[in-house]
């Protein structure tokens, strides 16, 4: 590190992503929906932050606000110091390379009319990285990294199982070597045994690539396993936040306690 620490991305002084009192209100004929209300949070470099909540808690909306996919109604989101609202469209698209997302529905998130390897190459093509050959090589390497034999790259998404589709989606998300990986319920639609594979994969990749991660889920046990810090959301607000171990062992907010209490144990 030659430059001063304050300027290098995500130093101790500056988190990678920070939300300052963000709110998102959706208007419709039926009235307003306050999906996210006055949320402040941050994700440090190399940190995995989990956001848990039930349906309607606003966690998915928050993820999209943090990625700049939706504009905030109020408040601001900063990525590496830059206020996303002030970044013009074209530059925002370039900035997107540093934050990528893995979605809940693996089949739905892949382009159905592109082969698996073409799906993985697409972000590279969009941002003009390398030549067709080099992109293909990179895509093959990425598929290998997530456990899909590159020989299957020509097949189309519908020909893979759910778990394999999610692997392809993860490979695609990693193609641009992002700093931040946002996972929105990445295993909720997968079988239990496949879920375990994907979680193990995410854990490994996160370690290997030094990713910062935002992990959204309604499944408390999954979040406990992967996250360093956890935020609990209910009705658009963060009701409690803290280091994972502390939050799960000694929850303070009654809603957190209620959520934890409702989880069904299996062996313990």
């Amino acid at each position, binding site marked *: 590190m030659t430059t001063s620490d304050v300027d290098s991305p995500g130093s101790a002084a500056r988190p990678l992503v920070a939300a300052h009192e963000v709110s998102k209100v959706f208007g419709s004929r039926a009235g307003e929906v306050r999906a996210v209300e006055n949320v402040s949070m941050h994700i440090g470099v190399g940190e995995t932050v989990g956001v848990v909540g039930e349906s309607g808690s606003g966690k998915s909306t928050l993820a999209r606000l943090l990625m700049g996919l939706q504009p905030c109604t109020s408040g601001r989101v900063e990525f590496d110091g830059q206020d996303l609202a002030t970044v013009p469209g074209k530059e925002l698209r370039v900035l997107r390379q540093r934050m990528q997302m893995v979605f809940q529905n693996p089949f*739905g998130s892949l382009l*159905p*009319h592109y082969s698996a390897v073409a799906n993985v190459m697409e972000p590279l093509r969009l941002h003009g990285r390398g030549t067709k050959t080099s992109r293909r090589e990179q895509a093959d390497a990425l598929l290998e990294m997530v*456990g899909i034999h590159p020989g*299957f790259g020509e097949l189309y998404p519908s020909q893979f199982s759910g778990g394999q589709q999610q692997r392809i989606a993860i490979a695609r998300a990693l193609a*641009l070597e992002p700093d931040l990986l946002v996972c929105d319920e990445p295993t909720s639609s997968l079988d239990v045994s*496949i879920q375990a594979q994907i979680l193990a994969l995410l854990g490994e990749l996160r370690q290997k690539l030094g990713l910062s991660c935002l992990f959204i889920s309604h499944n408390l046990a999954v979040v406990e396993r992967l996250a360093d810090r956890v935020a609990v959301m209910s009705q658009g607000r963060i009701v409690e936040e803290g280091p994972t171990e502390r939050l799960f062992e000694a929850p303070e907010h009654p809603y957190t306690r209620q959520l934890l209490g409702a989880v069904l144990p299996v062996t313990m």
Partner: protein
Amino acid sequence: MDVIAAAEGLHSTGLEPDAGAAGAGAAGAGAAGAGETVARARARGPWRKAWDRFKRNRLALISLVMCGVLVVVAFAAPWIAPHHYADTDYEALLAGAGADGHLLGTDQLGRDILSRTLYGLRTALIVAFGAELLALLCALVVGLAAGYRGGRAEQGLMAFTDVMYAFPSYLFAIVMVAVLGRSIFALIVAIGIAGWVTQARLVRAQVLSIKQREYVEAARAMGASGPTIAVRYILPNAIGPMLVTTSFAIPAAIAAEAGLGLLGLGVQPPTPSWGGMISEGTRYLLSAPHMLLAPACVFALALLAFTWFGDGVRDAFDPRGDRR
């Protein structure tokens, strides 16, 4: 992958379950098999799947052959027709079928019915394909813009199409012909313009529905721009149903051309048009019924062939049509 879903529409993956993969750690545990199994699986994208479904439908294949034959015959009409369509044979006026040199007889001016029918097929197909291609292109451009951009563009389109709906299409075609004159070009424009509106709305509906899919959001997250998303990701997926509509629109256009010909608004004589031939044939119905029969039968055949083809295309893209 629910079994019921597996049987109802998704094809089996054709991939062997992994036999003890020794991948790196747990992550590698999902690795999809060794080299030998790669050769067995064949890439089947959505177009390939539709084609496979089409192939399995016997009626669709038959109709494909029929349409193919019609198209080839129409294209080759100038070479295979025994006479030019305007050649008059004064020695054989209103001759019946099987007359010397005139397989299907002649009309009141001594023109060979068979040749005129073949040329009529050529006219019909040129107009029908031309019109529907024009309609499809307009519909795609406008529908995509309206569906994707929304806002004023969409409202404008919807208002415009509402106005066009209000016009009876035949009336509109008549006006077009009056303005542009009686030529093949005029007919193509007239019939095409009358039809594109419905298709544009369909495109818009498709685009709206596809916009909700996760892969569109994923594309935005990847940093794709609006036009890229619209053209590279949404359009190819919206085209499927449009092919179905277009396939059904072709027989409709054939009928429209014949109808206009019947009204005396089709192509200028002596260029043959089935509609014109039928109109004349009706006048000589009692004395020379063969004048009416030939064009009418081929007309009906063409309609049938293309309609069956449309059915086949629809079933290929939407196989759940008749499921419980």
